[in-house]
């Protein structure tokens, strides 16, 4: 891009030196193409820069076709000319130029000579004649002396033909051997303006050739010498002289009057007589008659519009001076201005034009123009050559840079097709340059990252808005070698928006390691290095957050402050290494005891804190605390074969109940822990004393449930279901009772909650199904009429499909007809996870076992879901039945439920029927079955036996009465 200055100077000047030499050569040699170029330039430039001409003061008297036809064939008797001249003289013309050669005597000369003499303002022409001289040189073709002596002056009619064969110039003076003769037009002008002609006498008007400043040697023999070149204006039609017919003047002499004061040129215009001259204007019309040429020369001289031509030396100097300008400028300009320097090409023609106008001097511009063009082209070629070299160098540099940098670089075009990738990009993509080229960047990205949309969006936005964009977050990158990277993507458009752009450069900066470091440091700053658990700061942070969430959601947060008992002793006796190992084991065990999502943190030393978030009640906390104590009590294998037995003290505070302030909550947990520790350790202590009581009660209840199941303390009671239309026993609902030692008969609502929490409900539920089926089998074995038996299942039992196996097994063991078994589940159980419930119910249904929905109406059933479940029976909750007689709302609900169930093809059972009026209402609305104290409370199996044999009369009576009442 920036080559050294000396090279630049030599390079620049070299070009312009060649240009200058060329210019000199072209100027100094008459190379015809250049001459022609100059002539064209003259023809073009001259009309534009011509100065104002005087009003014409000349006319042509033309020997035209009409004259020839009137006066007969040429040559005429010269008396005709005499006559005309007399007319003209009489009319008072200023001067007369005759463009007719009179080289030999002819009849009428006398009259003509006399007329010449009389007039004294007539100029006769002299023409050069090749071979006319004695030595074979160019001689002067003079009028016959008789006439020449009478003429006011003689004027040569020598016309120079330029390189293009066109007549543009004549000479002030010319003559054989010496330039003695004024040009015809000049001589005529002199006569007209009263000046004495240059050479009146042909004999002594000879000029010495040596005196001539500018000899134009035509031949080695007698030369024709010219002097004072006269370049004539371009002969456009507008400047053509007025013409009057020769014959018309002769015929009507009075017409000559209009010629008074004018100069008159007489000559032939008819084609046959005068061949005429080819002029620059000829291509548009006729060749120009010689007489017109002279008349135009006259006017040009008169107006001062006959130009001189600059000498080649002058031209050369001027051209070279001109060339210095671009040579100087181009080295000092930025590229754009340098290119504009080409405009300098118009300077030489313009300068020529101005010279014409102001100095009546013609300076041929072509050499200068050609020289400039050559210099310019050379300069440009040099420039491009240099630029190309610099670019190639730059490309090598860029290539080397691209290969050495650690970023992946992908260039794309405006259509987002890949044009190039560097080696790092090859490594990231596993593609070679050839494979990647032409792929759409979107397709390319798609194979390696999941965030294609964001990455591609960035690239497209960069292309669209023409600005560099960096994707703020690193994108994950799966390279084909199986490694994962994090890359920061930057898209930079190439070119400016004005040019429409040339695509973009996509740079992928590998930040994998940086991110890993940052993540690790972040982890280290917030975690305990020994155990990997969150540290104090992170724990506090999460605690604040958890408390805020708890306030918003109305949930609970529990803090368990865990302190190892006698840890100091381990550390002191077995050393820090064992102590650290123990802490790690403890950390693992603590994490194993909590729910996912709970935070286990190391508070410091042997203190840990467990944060349980999003709790709905405290029971889960006690469960975790117990699990934790259990896990910690397992032996720890220490180095050296020592097995350590650990225990810990756990203090528990529950927010926001105990306190909504994080610090206070912590201090409460700490205090509770400390108290537990002082009480002997290996225990958990709630800060709130009533929680300790509750927890103890719950614990003993759980233990008692386990014992109860093992010791057969549970019993099934059965409540009869009566067919409302017939009054017959139509079914039994099995209800569990617990003979808790010391507490008598315990109803399920007292212990089911605890059983659900500990999970023992599964075992109890399984026992209930087996016991119910076995009982039904026993009754059947006794030959009693079987009725369907309904068994309740809990939500916990429905959480997996295990219950299906239990039912299948129980049926197989008892040999009971599946239609004799129904399972009852509550509405809320079914709706908790409808998908799972649907699957479970379908599986149960597939066994042939009926399904009843308990407590219907208390939850929020979705009708559409209800339809999807294979439910055979709806049980109306007793809270609705209780008031149907009085409460219109409840009555409406019951009516609606019955209609709904029947619509879906289900049976309806009303629970808690206690009065005959309730039964009557149910009967009226088509309810199928009823159970309640009106018929019987839940009874032990032994008492149900009687019902199976023969239902007691009060049941049938109640049904009859209810029918009778309504």
């Amino acid at each position, binding site marked *: 891009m920036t080559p050294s200055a000396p090279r630049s100077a030599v390079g620049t000047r070299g070009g312009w030196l060649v240009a200058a030499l060329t210019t000199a050569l072209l100027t100094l040699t008459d190379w015809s193409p250049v001459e022609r170029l100059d002539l064209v330039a003259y023809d073009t430039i001259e009309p534009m820069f011509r100065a104002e001409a005087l009003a014409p003061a000349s006319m042509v008297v033309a020997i035209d076709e009409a004259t020839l036809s009137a006066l007969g064939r040429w040559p005429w008797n010269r008396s005709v000319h005499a006559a005309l001249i007399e007319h003209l003289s009489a009319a008072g013309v200023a001067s007369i130029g005759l463009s007719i050669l009179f080289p030999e005597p002819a009849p009428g000369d006398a009259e003509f000579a006399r007329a010449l003499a009389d007039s004294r303002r007539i100029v006769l022409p002299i023409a050069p004649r090749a071979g006319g001289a004695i030595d074979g040189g160019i001689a002067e073709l003079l009028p016959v002396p008789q006439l020449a002596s009478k003429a006011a002056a003689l004027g040569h009619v020598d016309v120079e033909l330029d390189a293009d064969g066109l007549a543009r110039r004549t000479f002030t003076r010319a003559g054989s051997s010496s330039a003695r003769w004024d040009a015809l037009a000049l001589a005529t002008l002199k006569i007209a303006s009263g000046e004495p002609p240059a050479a009146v006498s042909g004999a002594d008007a000879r000029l010495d050739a040596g005196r001539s400043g500018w000899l134009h040697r035509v031949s080695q023999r007698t030369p024709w010498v010219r002097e004072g070149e006269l370049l004539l204006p371009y002969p456009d039609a507008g400047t053509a002289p007025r013409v009057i017919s020769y014959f018309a003047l002769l015929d009507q002499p009075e017409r000559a009057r209009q010629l008074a004061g004018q100069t008159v040129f007489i000559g032939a215009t008819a084609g046959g007589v005068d061949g005429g001259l080819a002029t620059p204007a000829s291509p548009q019309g006729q060749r120009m008659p010689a007489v017109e040429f002279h008349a135009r020369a006259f006017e040009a001289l008169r107006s001062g519009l006959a130009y001189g031509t600059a000498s080649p030396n002058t031209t050369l100097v001027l051209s070279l001076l001109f060339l210095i300008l671009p040579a100087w400028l181009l080295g000092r300009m930025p590229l754009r201005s340098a290119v504009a320097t080409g405009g300098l090409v118009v300077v030489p023609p313009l300068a020529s034009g101005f010279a014409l106008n102001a100095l009546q001097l013609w300076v041929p511009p072509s050499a200068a123009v050609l020289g400039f063009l050559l210099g310019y082209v050379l300069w440009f070629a040099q420039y491009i050559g240099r630029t190309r070299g610099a*670019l190639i160098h730059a490309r090598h540099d860029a290539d080397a840079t*691209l290969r050495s940098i650690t970023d992946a670089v992908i260039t794309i075009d405006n259509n987002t097709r890949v*044009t190039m990738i560097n080696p790092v990009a090859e490594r990231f993509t596993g593609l070679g340059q050839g494979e990647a080229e032409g792929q759409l960047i979107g397709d390319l990205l798609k194979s390696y990252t999941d965030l294609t949309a964001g990455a591609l969006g960035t690239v497209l936005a960069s292309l669209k808005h023409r600005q560099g964009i960096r994707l703020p977050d690193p994108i994950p990158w799966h390279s084909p070698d199986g490694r994962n990277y994090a890359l920061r993507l930057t898209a930079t458009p190439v070119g400016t928006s004005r040019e429409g752009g040339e695509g973009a450069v996509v740079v992928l900066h590998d930040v994998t390691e940086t991110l890993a470091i940052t993540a690790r440091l972040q982890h280290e*700053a917030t975690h305990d*290095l*020994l155990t990997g658990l969150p540290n104090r700061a992170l724990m506090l942070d999460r605690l604040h957050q958890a408390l805020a969430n708890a306030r918003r959601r109305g949930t609970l947060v529990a803090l368990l402050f865990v302190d190892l008992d006698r840890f100091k002793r381990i550390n002191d006796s077995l050393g820090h290494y064992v102590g650290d190992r123990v802490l790690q084991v403890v950390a693992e065990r603590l994490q194993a005891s909590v729910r996912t999502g709970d935070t286990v943190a190391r508070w410091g030393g042997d203190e840990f804190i467990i944060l349980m978030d999003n709790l709905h009640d405290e029971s889960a906390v006690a469960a975790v605390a117990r699990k934790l104590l259990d896990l910690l009590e397992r032996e720890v294998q220490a180095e050296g074969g020592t097995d350590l037995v650990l225990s810990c003290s756990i203090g528990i505070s529950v927010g926001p109940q105990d306190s909504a302030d*994080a*610090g206070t909550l912590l201090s409460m947990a*700490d205090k509770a822990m400390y108290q537990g520790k*002082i009480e002997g350790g290996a225990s958990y202590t709630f800060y709130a004393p009533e929680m300790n009581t509750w927890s103890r009660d719950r614990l003993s209840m759980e233990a008692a449930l386990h014992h109860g199941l093992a010791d057969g303390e549970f019993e099934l009671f059965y409540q009869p279901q009566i067919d409302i239309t017939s009054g017959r026993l139509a079914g039994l609902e099995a209800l569990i009772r617990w003979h808790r030692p010391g507490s008598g008969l315990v109803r399920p609502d007292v212990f089911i909650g605890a059983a659900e929490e500990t999970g023992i409900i599964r075992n109890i539920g399984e026992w209930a199904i087996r016991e119910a089926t076995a009982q039904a089998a026993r009754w059947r074995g006794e030959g009693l009429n079987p009725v369907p038996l309904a068994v309740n299942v809990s939500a916990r039992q429905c959480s997996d499909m295990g219950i299906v196996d239990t039912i299948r097994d129980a049926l197989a063991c008892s040999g009971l007809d599946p239609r004799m078994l129904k399972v009852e589940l509550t509405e809320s159980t079914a709706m908790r996870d409808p998908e799972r419930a649907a699957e479970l119910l379908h599986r149960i249904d597939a066994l042939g076992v009926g399904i009843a929905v308990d407590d219907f109406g208390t939850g929020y059933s979705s009708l559409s879901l209800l339809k999807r479940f294979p439910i055979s029976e709806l049980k109306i909750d007793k809270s609705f039945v209780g008031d149907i007689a009085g409460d219109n709302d409840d009555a409406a609900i019951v009516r609606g439920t019955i209609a709904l169930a029947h619509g879906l093809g289900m049976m309806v059972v009303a629970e808690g029927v206690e009065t005959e009026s309730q039964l009557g209402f149910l009967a009226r609305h088509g309810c199928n079955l009823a159970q309640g104290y009106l018929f019987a409370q839940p009874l032990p199996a032994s008492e149900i036996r009687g019902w199976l044999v023969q239902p007691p009369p009060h049941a049938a009576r109640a049904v009859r009465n209810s029918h009778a009442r309504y």
Partner: protein
Amino acid sequence: MLAQTFRCTRLARRTTAILLASLALALCGSAALAQDFVYVVRAGDNPWNLTQRYLKSIDYWPRIQDYNQIIDAQAIQPGTVLRIPVAWMRGERTRARIVDVRGEVEQQVGEHVAPLVTGMQVEAGAVIRSGDDSSLTLEFPDGSRSLVGANTELALREIRRLKASGAQQLDVELRRGHLENTVRPVGRGGGRYLIHTPAAVAAVRGTDFRATAAGDGLRAETIKGEVALHNRRGTTRLPAGTGSHVTPGKAPEASSRLLPAPRLDKLPERIDRVPFRVPIEPVAGAVHYRSQIAGDAGFTALDSDRTATEPAILGRDGLADGSYRLRVRAIDGRGLEGLDGEREIVIDARPEPPFPSAPGGFATEERVRFEWARSPEATGYHFQLAADADFERILLTRDDLQEAQLTLEDELPSGNYWWRVGLSTAAEGRGPYSDIQRFRRPPPGPAAEPPQVDGDVLQLRWRATDGAVRYEVQLGRSGDFAAPEHTLETTTAELAMPRPEGGTWHVRIRSQEAGSPPGPWSKPQQIEVPQSHWRAVLILLPLLLAL
């Protein structure tokens, strides 16, 4: 056991076989002998006046004859030693007085349950129960006292004064729990103190003595005097300074010496936290240590009664500030409690200090901020920062803090520190300091020397930090390092990285010690990286390719 003895006697009468009766007496003898009232017959004594003076009724006289193997009652010679079982002796029912009560204590008489309060009288037939952290002292008419411990059930069977001697006869059933007695010496006046437990009967004669009934039997310790432990399988005598254990269905174990009293002279004068556990010198052979705290020297009611599994005294939660008597005993492997060590302690734990929350472990922020739980009652907080755990080299003491936090004005040099905080309230004045919190201040990051740019590599060097295992270096365009462009790490005190884009960069470094989070950042430094043009070149590439 009394009932058994009685049954034996009845059996003897029914069979009217003296031989069998003698056999039965022999079986029950040792216990009966210990409980007999001994009377030396004087001139003029006859069965009637003796009966009048000593026996419940004349019906008992034949039994006395049988018992003492007197053939002829009319010819009892003066000087004859008569043994009269106390059960047959004439006496009057008396009552015990409640001297002091702590916690929840109730008595049940028949079906009637009522709480016990100081000054109440209880009679035989009452069952006394105490709950957690509860205790009471019963005082009997002869001045004997029994301290009933927590979770104890005690049935008063008999409280009687013998008319003959004024001696007191106590008979209680310790169903569960703990009893400590100071019994007046009973001499030969027929006084006795029987403690029945499911495992054995303890007969006490004028002594300081403890009994504890638990599921695994009875433990008894004699401090002064003597105690006889007796059941169907055997008897063990416990002289002063010994104790024994009886398992139900087994003979009482041999007595063993009680553990000596723990030394308490090294305990601090004041205890500034409740509940508390203060280590004491261990006693050889001890597995547990029982600490009892009472407001008065007589230990009539226990404000705290705790057993530690290590050489320490314990005080329960809720002990009010004040002056107390403390007695501590070592407990041996059999569960026998040793001799009392006793002294006075002062508890001054209020207002309770706030809970210190940060820093703990490490403090890496530029200006360390201490935080503790805010207390609504606090009128101010006092704070101490020290360079040692004993707070001998105190660096900062602030007694005027109003907020539950303190941010140090100056940057703390690296090192280990200890701090604690307390609070004052309007009601309770200035409270004690919290537990001591330790934290470490890692050394700050080193300052980089001027960087060197060598081709495409930027080199940074700095002075190595002692103990540093790793350095983290960040380069960012902005001085606030909100989003540093480069984060690098190294284990040596120098770093070579690909030269970043040209321009001004900010550099900061921090070091990390083993097992510690990274320390504080060094002060950011500015460095200049010369421009590089490859991006500009890249932009020209397509044009170049076109050429």
